[in-house]
């Protein structure tokens, strides 16, 4: 296992009683990557990340951070945001960022300076001396994210970092992740909101029922599902019959036709066939594959439905002092 590789997991499994949370997971995160760790609830994402950090020991297999089993020395290079958020409510934002920075090895003065810098960078300096109990949920979450960044880690492990944030703060967090990546940090974050992964990630790892179902570049993931073309025609026209003569299969949903494209087919072929058949086209739009489609195709349908319905009802929490 390479000492420059931030994370390597080999054949790791974790059982809780009779339940297998993670089954023979193999995962490598290379330096400089931004990896999206996707999967529905209960897929084993958090358990995998906790194993990666040494919080949980795998029942079988191996985990290495920078080539070594996780220990305090290697963990000093890691910043972690847990899925279950929590801070000491009677400490101020500044105190708690300083505390975690010191736990990661920074001196008192350096930790305090870093806390002030981070609070200022996120426009939170006015709340630095406020106790956590006085901050809103979203604000407290931002402070917790800063505790993970306080020691300028080489490797960021973020478990569901976007949950609980409103769209504005989700956007701010995306920018923060990008800036950390630009600083040189390797990032892995779990999420079941596909859009974040699409915007941020170069590499995607998908989990379902404790097993890895995909691991590779985002583009490769997108290639696993068919592209399509969205066509609108005048009412009453049977586009399916028209295109079937040219070997294309079209299906209608609410008056909108969709035609799947094989990897070697071009949308222009469909357009030419439809025009040639005299189809009264009012709209024609090629559609790229979406990560959401990849997710649906790779994860079993009921699970995917659960996750996507959760995505449609985000848990917003406003910023500011409550």
């Amino acid at each position: 296992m390479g000492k420059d590789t931030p994370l390597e997991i080999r054949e790791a499994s974790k059982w809780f009683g009779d339940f297998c949370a993670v089954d023979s997971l193999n995962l490598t995160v290379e330096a400089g990557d931004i990896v999206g760790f996707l999967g529905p609830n209960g897929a084993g994402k958090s358990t995998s990340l906790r194993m990666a950090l040494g919080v949980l020991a795998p029942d079988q297999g191996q985990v290495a951070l920078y080539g070594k089993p996780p220990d305090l020395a290697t963990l000093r290079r890691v910043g972690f945001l847990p899925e279950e958020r929590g801070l000491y409510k009677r400490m101020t934002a500044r105190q708690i960022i300083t505390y975690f920075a010191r736990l990661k090895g920074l001196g008192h003065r350096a930790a305090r300076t870093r806390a002030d810098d981070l609070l200022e960078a996120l426009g939170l300096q006015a709340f630095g001396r406020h106790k956590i109990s006085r901050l809103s949920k979203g604000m407290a979450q931002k402070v917790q994210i800063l505790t993970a960044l306080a020691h300028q880690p080489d490797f960021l492990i973020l478990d569901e970092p976007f949950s609980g944030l409103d769209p504005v703060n989700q956007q701010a967090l995306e920018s923060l992740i990008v800036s950390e990546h630009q600083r040189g940090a390797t990032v892995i974050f779990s999420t079941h909101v596909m859009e974040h992964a699409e915007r941020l990630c170069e590499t995607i790892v998908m989990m379902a029922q404790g097993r890895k179902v995909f691991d590779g570049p985002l583009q490769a993931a997108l290639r696993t599902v068919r592209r399509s073309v969205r066509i609108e025609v005048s009412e009453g026209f049977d586009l399916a019959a028209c295109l079937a003569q040219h070997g294309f299969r079209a299906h209608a949903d609410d008056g909108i036709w969709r035609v799947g494209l094989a990897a070697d087919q071009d949308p222009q072929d469909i357009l030419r066939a439809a025009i040639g058949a005299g189809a009264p086209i009012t709209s024609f739009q090629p559609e790229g594959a979406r990560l959401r489609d990849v997710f649906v195709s790779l994860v079993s349908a009921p699970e995917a439905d659960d996750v996507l319905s959760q995505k449609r009802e985000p848990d917003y929490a406003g910023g500011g002092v409550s």
Partner: protein
Amino acid sequence: MSGLLLVARRDYLGYVTAWGFWLGLLLTPLILGVFMLTPVLAASSQPARYFTVIDTDNSFSRAMQAELADRAGSSSLPPAELSVAIGDPASQVSPPLLLPEFIMVPPPAIEPEALAPYLSGEMLIATPEGPRPLFAALIVSDDEGSIQYLSENMQAQALLDIARAAERKLAEERVFAAAGVSSRLIEDARSARRDVVAQRMRSGTLSGASDVTLQDRAPFIVSIALAFVLWFLVFSVVNYLLMGTIEERSNKIFDSLLTSVRLPQLLAGKLLAVLLLSLTLIAFWSGGSTLLTWAVSNRLPPDVLNQLSILGAAVLKPMMLGPALLSFLLGYLIYGALFLALGSLCDTIQEAQTLMTPLIILLMVPLFMLTIAMDDVGSPAIYGLSWVPLFTPFLLILRMPAEPPLWEVVAQLGLMVLTTYAILRLATRVYRAGAVHGAGLGDVGVWFKRLLPGRARTKPNDRA
């Protein structure tokens, strides 16, 4: 600074910056002081109790007068303050400490039925303090079959005891007089009695025996005080551990901490923080007491100062201080680790209370032993329970003034060390289960079931 010290520092500052800590720090000595002074204050502020005696020949009245005078004479008050005169409400007997003051008054009525309104408080008798209710009446019947004691208050037994003692002496006098023994002779016989003087054996020889002084009693007094302080500290500070751990569990902060410090470091840091907290309490209270004593030392009588210095010296004796410090440290670790493990399994205080009850009962046993030690530190109960490591921290201190064999002290300390180690190991496992795996109260039952034969858990590796 290491992770352990950082955890300890954060927790310690978290505790001492809470206003509740300072409230407890200041109020505890105040409450203890009030608790100790209340019986004395209550007795000294107790109003005088008036009683009357109805007898035809005044013999019982005189016997009561003599008994009251006798008891007052045995108190620490100077004889000049004592005087008794039947029928003179102004003359009264100053009682020994913690006993109420009884004053005999002429009967306001002769018949029991007529006395009833006075005894019930419906009618009052005239006293120098103004009208007051009659506390009791003693009626000596002519046939001398018995003496009636009438009172509304049947809980206060002091006057009844005085009356019984007076009658015992009166009966002796009657019988001796009937046998021709003069009253002078009876008086001589009583005054000829010898004092029983307590002496403490020293050096195993009679020649080494000497009178019991405060110097002898000081180690026993100090041992009881130290055991109580230890019990009180353990009882009060372990709650901080419990609350702190429940807060961390409910705040879901364990994962963040466990990527920065190892679990044993986290546990040790927490225990150290609360140990420092209890040392702060000790320093504050002992420093405060020393300052207070120093501030009022000019006003204190020399003998009181002397007594205080004797007690202080008894605390600082190595044979007392050494085991006391070790007992405090080990006792604190035992109970601290238990409460820490308990807190890691609970999300709320309500949950914790269900598991706390047996621990609280356990902690009550040494407190009960303290009351036994006040009468007899060599009690078999104290000796036997001092071998139970959970109680040794408190009971070994109690035994030290009796100078137990060295091997027993070493063996009990050794047992405590082993128990502390075992409990720390167990607490670490429970804490890991609670903090890392989210185990809760419901899992405790499962763990106990696994201890049953044939119900051991299959290792996950075996299945994989």
